[in-house]
């Protein structure tokens, strides 16, 4: 049963990065879109994520619940050592979720919209940045539960160049996912070309940010290169991801909509696999002493058993319903009209 729980944990993290990531990317793109195109971009994105944003973010909750039920020590150590970035991430989650819904459901469309938009776009970048920081801190080996002075225990655990670089990389990755996703959501040629251009830019930025991660790791003395390329799974995952970029551009230029999404998802998956493969079963690398491991630092067997069954049972309900949700809202564009009507009546 422990493997069921671990697989679900990985699944939740993976899906959160893919689905939640595209969702964050939507806001990030708003931040980096010139105001001329902003409103079109916003309409496309807002309509694409409206029905599914709550569901996308549930994966984070699932991951957290699995952690505190199944791996309480890991949850405990992370909560203490990474308190500060976790709080910042939470503030980002609050700001983003509420701003998104407020701008959609404010009955009067006036200057408040600009405020919502600003908050939404900014928090869309801040949240994944700190998610990246947290992920990096888990790997970097600066977490030190035995430390007694404030800086070592609560600040240097997450404030280092590697974490900053991974944070930036995560933001870029989210923007990349969103730009690929948007290509299929557009309704005219001009918008479509616009998002294809965006995808190119985002790919380059992501690539550079990825390179930066290796530079930062070298600077901090973290053996990232050997971790990823020291085994055939890691190196072939990175190889495949790079190769499939070519496929992605080809598919985009041929006007495909679904294939690029699959390829983008594939690339993210490969990146996660490359990092995760060598790392498993460790979850948190500690400064001193043995790392926290998914196989060792578990809850009692009875709990793992119950948790595994709860997850299996839950997915019988969730997965079909979720599939149907995505399926149903694939190609729709009506709800936006309602907001416009309200504005019209107002005038």
């Amino acid at each position, binding site marked *: 049963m422990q493997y069921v729980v671990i697989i679900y944990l990985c699944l939740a993290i993976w899906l959160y990065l893919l689905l939640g990531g595209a969702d964050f990317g939507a806001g990030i793109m708003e931040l980096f879109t010139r105001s001329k195109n902003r409103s079109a971009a916003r309409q496309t994105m807002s309509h694409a994520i*409206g*029905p599914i944003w*709550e*569901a996308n*973010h*549930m994966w*984070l*909750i*699932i991951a*957290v*619940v*699995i952690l*505190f*039920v*199944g791996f*309480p020590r890991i*949850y*405990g150590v*992370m*909560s*203490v050592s990474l*308190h500060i970035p*976790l*709080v910042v991430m*939470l*503030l980002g*989650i*609050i700001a983003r*979720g*509420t701003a*998104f*819904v*407020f701008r*959609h*459901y*404010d*009955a*009067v469309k006036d200057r408040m919209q600009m405020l919502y938009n600003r908050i939404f776009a900014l928090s869309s970048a801040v949240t994944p940045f700190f998610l990246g920081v947290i992920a990096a801190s888990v790997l970097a080996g600066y977490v030190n539960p035995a430390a007694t002075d404030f800086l070592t*225990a*609560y600040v240097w655990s997450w404030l280092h160049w590697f974490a900053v670089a991974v944070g930036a990389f995560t933001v870029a990755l989210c923007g990349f996912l969103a730009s690929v996703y948007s290509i299929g959501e557009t309704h005219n040629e001009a918008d479509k070309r616009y998002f294809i251009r965006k995808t190119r830019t985002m790919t380059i930025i992501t690539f550079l940010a990825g390179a930066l991660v290796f530079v930062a790791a070298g600077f901090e003395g973290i053996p990232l290169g050997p971790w990823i390329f020291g085994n055939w799974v890691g190196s072939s995952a990175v190889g495949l991801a790079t190769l499939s970029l070519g496929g992605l551009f080809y598919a985009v230029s041929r006007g495909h909509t679904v294939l690029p999404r699959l390829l983008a998802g594939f690339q993210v998956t490969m990146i996660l696999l490359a990092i995760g493969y060598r790392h498993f079963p460790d979850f948190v690398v500690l400064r001193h002493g043995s790392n926290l491991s998914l196989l060792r630092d578990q*809850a*009692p067997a*009875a*709990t793992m058993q*119950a*948790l595994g069954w*709860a*997850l299996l049972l*839950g997915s019988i*309900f*969730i997965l079909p*319903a979720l599939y149907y*949700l995505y399926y*149903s*809202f694939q190609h*729709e564009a*009506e709800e936006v009209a309602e907001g416009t*009507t309200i504005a019209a*009546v*107002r005038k």
Partner: protein
Amino acid sequence: MDDFLAARSQMALSLGFHIIFSCIGMVMPFFMAVAHYKWLRGGDETYRNLTKAWSKGVAIFFAVGAVSGTVLSFELGLLWPKFMEHAGPIFGMPFSLEGTAFFIEAIALGFFLYGWGRFHPWFHWFTGVVVGVSGLASGILVVAANAWMNSPSGFDYVNGQYLNVDPVRAMFNDAWLSQALHMTLAAFAATGFAVAGVHALMVLKRRNIHFHFRAFQIAAVFGTVAAVLQPLSGDFSAKDVARRQPAKLAAMEAHFHTEKSAALVLGGLPNEKEQRVDYAIKIPGALSFLAHGNFEQEVTGLDRIPVADRPPVTVPHLAFQLMVGLGMFMMGLALLYFWALWRRPHWLRADWLLKLFVAAIPAGFIAVEAGWTVTEVGRQPWILYGIMRTRDAVTPMPGIAYSFYLFTAVYLSLSLVVIFLLYRQIKMVPELYDRPALVGAA
């Protein structure tokens, strides 16, 4: 502010904030389902408009409920890591099932909010009902986790070790039934009265009477039925507390000295130093009766509890009085409403009755906050009753006070924005739903 106090305050603030949104998230879907049903069955456009208008408000509340809930699932660890390390595996069962319930709720909500005119009308209606049912399920499950903190079970505590963990038994702990029942009713009573009151206010202002009166009726029926059952379930809860947490009962009743045929203390200011209650009305024997169902029986007072294990008295006592007082007021109003429905239909449109409902807008939610204060403060100094002290569970991270100020500012501004948005929604009702010619397709 010292870190321990700050952590407690932050936890209380976050939960006190979340509970408002979760009550609405649990209950409003049922109001909408009724209005929606009436529209689908009777074809009265007002009901369709009502469903739509409500669903916009609910979308706002859901978003805030979802983010504040997400914050909570991290905060348990951020503030109480030592508690969670031991408790997580034991009381995790309801949380993991709750995850499923949330997920289904979020999926169904996507269908419901964005599904107008896209699906078969009855499928669309059904997704709304699913939102309600899974919301209710998640509320009941999460209360199981809290009940376990009041009544730990499903493990053996040997020399500081938590052995023989049985998560299923932990979930079905002693306190769950009474707490979940009382909480569910409270959600219906609080939301019902608040919504009914707001629409009553609109009727009083003679705005869209047709629309608001129908809204008022739906909310009022739900709220009043729950308000009549609430004191009954409260009595059940009190007997339960007397049995499993005598210290909490003594604190909420300000019952300092163990005695036979104990008196019920109404109102008054507890004086914890002198161990007496000033300015109170005492009803002889009533406490024995309420706690144990017999006027003679001895009721344990705080003097039987070791000093180190005594909860504060003033806060739980006053909060308890407040909850019961409001409960009585709501029950009275509910009975009046039933009488009007049954015998005096013209009262339903009388200004004085509507004004009473307006006065009751905050009553239920104040009672909910007061009730949770009784439960949580009354459990002190324990975070896990009889096993782990709250002080031993707090995070070693210094400077929690700043995080408390930060979250206070965030929650305060969120509350203001939500009120502002609701005000705008209600203000738009005439423009959206009264002049069909203008609105066209909306």
